[in-house]
C-alpha cells in the first residue's frame, strides 16, 4: 500500500508547486477546484435570477437607462395576473403542453413497443424514426409551413386524401381553430421519437425471463402488458414526460417559425408573449415579473412531478 500511484504522483510533483500547495488544507484545495464553477454559476444563474426578482418590483425599461426607476411594489404582478390576454396565452400554453405530452407519450410508447420486437432491420428503423429529433426546430417549423400550405402542402393533401375534403378549403396555420393543433402536430412529429427512445430503454431493461415466468404462470399477453410492461416502463415514461413538459413550457423557436404566435393570439405561448413584452415593448420591470411568475409555475409543477416520479420509482 505504500507505493500507490497517488504516492508516485506526489513525488513527481515539482518542489515549487508542492511548496505552494503545502499551505492548503484538503478543504482549501477542494474550494480551489470548485470555485470557478461556483463563480460561473453565480454570475450567469443566481445573480440574474435575483436581479430579475428585484427588477420585477420596478418600472425599469432597459431601453431608457437614464430614466429614474420607480419602485412599484406588487403592481406588475397584479397587472399580469388580472390581464385576460395573459390568461389566454397561459391557456394556449396549457393546451399545447397537454396535447403534445398526450400524443407524444402514446405515439412514443407505441413506436418503442413495436421497435422492441426482434425483427430484421430494427436498428435502421430506429435511426429513421429518430431523424426528426436531430433537425433544428427552426428548420422543422419552416418546412411544416410548407406542409401546411393549403394549395401545395402535403399535409393538406393527405388529409384530403383520407377524408375527401377539399385540400384548399382549410389552412392549418391561418385558421383560429386549427392553428393550436398545427403546432401540436409539428411538435409531436419532432419529439415523439425522443419519448420512444426513453421508452425503449425502459422496455429493454425488462429481462426476458420475467415474461417467461409470466408465460408459465399463464398470464395472457394483455395481463403481461399491464402487470409487467407498463409498471416497469412507467418510471422511464414519466421521465420523458418531465423532459418534454419542461421543454414545451419554454417552447419558442418552432412555434415562432411556424405561426409566429398567430393568427391573433391563438398560438402565442407564454415564452413568445414574454419575449415581446421584454424585447419589443421594452417593459423590463413588467416582463421580469412575468418571468418570475413563469419560473415559479414551472418550478412548482416540476417539483410536484419529481416527487411523484420518485414515488413510482420506489415501487
Amino acid at each position: 500500500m505504500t507505493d500507490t500511484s497517488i504516492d508516485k504522483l506526489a513525488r513527481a510533483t515539482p518542489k515549487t508547486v508542492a511548496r505552494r500547495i503545502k499551505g492548503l488544507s484538503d478543504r482549501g484545495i477542494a474550494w480551489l477546484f470548485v470555485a470557478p464553477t461556483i463563480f460561473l454559476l453565480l454570475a450567469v444563474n443566481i445573480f440574474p435570477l435575483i436581479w430579475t426578482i428585484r427588477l420585477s418590483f420596478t418600472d425599469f425599461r432597459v431601453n431608457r437607462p437614464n430614466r429614474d426607476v420607480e419602485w412599484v411594489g406588487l403592481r406588475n404582478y397584479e397587472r399580469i395576473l388580472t390581464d385576460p390576454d395573459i390568461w389566454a396565452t397561459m391557456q394556449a400554453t396549457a393546451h399545447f403542453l397537454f396535447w403534445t405530452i398526450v400524443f407524444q407519450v402514446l405515439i412514443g410508447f407505441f413506436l418503442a413497443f413495436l421497435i422492441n420486437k426482434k425483427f430484421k432491420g430494427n436498428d435502421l428503423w430506429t435511426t429513421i424514426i429518430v431523424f426528426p429529433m436531430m433537425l433544428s426546430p427552426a428548420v422543422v417549423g419552416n418546412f411544416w409551413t410548407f406542409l401546411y400550405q393549403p394549395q401545395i402542402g402535403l399535409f393538406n393533401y393527405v388529409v384530403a386524401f383520407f377524408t375527401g375534403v377539399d385540400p384548399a378549403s382549410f389552412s392549418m396555420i391561418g385558421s383560429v381553430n386549427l392553428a393550436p393543433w398545427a403546432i401540436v402536430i409539428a411538435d409531436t412529429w419532432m419529439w415523439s421519437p425522443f419519448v420512444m427512445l426513453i421508452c425503449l430503454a425502459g422496455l429493454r431493461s425488462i429481462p426476458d425471463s420475467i415474461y417467461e415466468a409470466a408465460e408459465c404462470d399463464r398470464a395472457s399477453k394483455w395481463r403481461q402488458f399491464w402487470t409487467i410492461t407498463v409498471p416497469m416502463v412507467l418510471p422511464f415514461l414519466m421521465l420523458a414526460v418531465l423532459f418534454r413538459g419542461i421543454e414545451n413550457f419554454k417552447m419558442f423557436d418552432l412555434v415562432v417559425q411556424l405561426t409566429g404566435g398567430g393568427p391573433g393570439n391563438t398560438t402565442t405561448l407564454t415564452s413568445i408573449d414574454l419575449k415581446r413584452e421584454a424585447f419589443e415593448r421594452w417593459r423590463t420591470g413588467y416582463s421580469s415579473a412575468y418571468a418570475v411568475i413563469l419560473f415559479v409555475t414551472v418550478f412548482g409543477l416540476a417539483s410536484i412531478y419529481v416527487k411523484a416520479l420518485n414515488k413510482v420509482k420506489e415501487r
Partner: protein
Amino acid sequence: MAEVTLTGITKRYGNDVALNDVTMTVPDGSFVVLLGPTGAGKTTTLRMVSGLDTPDLGTVTIGGRDMAGLMPAQRDVAMVFQQYSLYPHLTVRQNLEFPLKSPILKTSQKEIDRKVGEVGEMLQISHKLDNKATALSGGEMQRVSIGRALVRDPAVFLMDEPLSSLDAKLRADLRVELKSIQADSGATLLYVTHDQIEAMTMATHVGVLDKGRLVQFGPPREIYEQPVSIYAASRLGQPRINVLPAEVFGGAPEGARTIGLRPEQIRQGDGEESRVERVERLGDQTRLHLRFKSHDIVTVTDAHTELKPGDRVKIRPEKPFYFDASGARLA
C-alpha cells in the same frame, strides 16, 4: 400430475447443438434430477418441456398429450427460474398470488389466501409477505420463486437450480422439504442441478447429460453403482471416483484403458504400498490423499485414523470399474 416423455429431442442454437437426440420418460409422480455441468443441456431440456422453446426435432408429451405447438400456458407447467424472475414491482404476496389469479383458474380469494399462507409458512417467508420483491435477499427471492410454483397444482414442476443461491443450512432444509412435498403430493418434478448431493438425496431418477446427450438415466443408486462411463461415474460420489491407468494394479480385463476406483472400492491393509500425502479430517469421516506409483488417489478411511503424512498404506482394488479408450465402462 402426469408422465412426461421426450422423444428424439434435438435443439440447435446457431451452430451449437444444445440437445442431441434426447429421449427419456419422466414417470408420473417421479422426481427426476438432470445432472451435468454448465452447457450440458439441462436448462434447454426444461425449456423444451415448458414450451418456452421448441425443439428442432422430436416430440414432448405431458400426460400422453403431444405438446407440439402449445404455449407454456396451455401445458400446465410451473417453472422455477434460476435467476428468480420475480415481478419486481409487486410484493411477495402479490408475486405468490400471481399464478393463482390467472382467469383460467378462477380461484376464490379465500383459497388464494390459504395457499399463499401455507407456502409462505413452508418456505419461511411469512414475515416478508408484504415486502417488495426487490427488497429481499437473494435466498429470499429464490424461496419466493419456488413458492410461486408451489402455490399451483400443475401437471409438472420444472425447477432450474432452485437451491443454488441459498446458504448451506437453508439448502439442506429445503432439500428435505421439497422432497417431502413431492412425495406427499405425488407431483412430477423435473429438476436441474449440478449439485450431486441434491441429486442423490431427492431424485427417484437421475438423468446425466453430457454436451447435449443423455448418457445415462436411472435411479441414483444405479448410476452410482453401475455407471456407463467415466463421465457418468464422476458425476456422483464424494470424494470423486479415482481414475488411473488400468495396468497400475494388474489384472485388468482385455481392452481396459483405465480403472475407476471409488473410495469403497479401495481395500486398505493389503496389496501394494502407497504413501500418505495428506490427511483431511472432516469429523464424520477422514479423507486420505495417497500417492501411488506417481498417481494421486483420494479415499476415505476411519474417522479416528492414526495415519499421518508420510505413513505407508497398502491398498488393493475391490470390484473396480474398468473403462475402455472411449471412456465407456466394460461390463
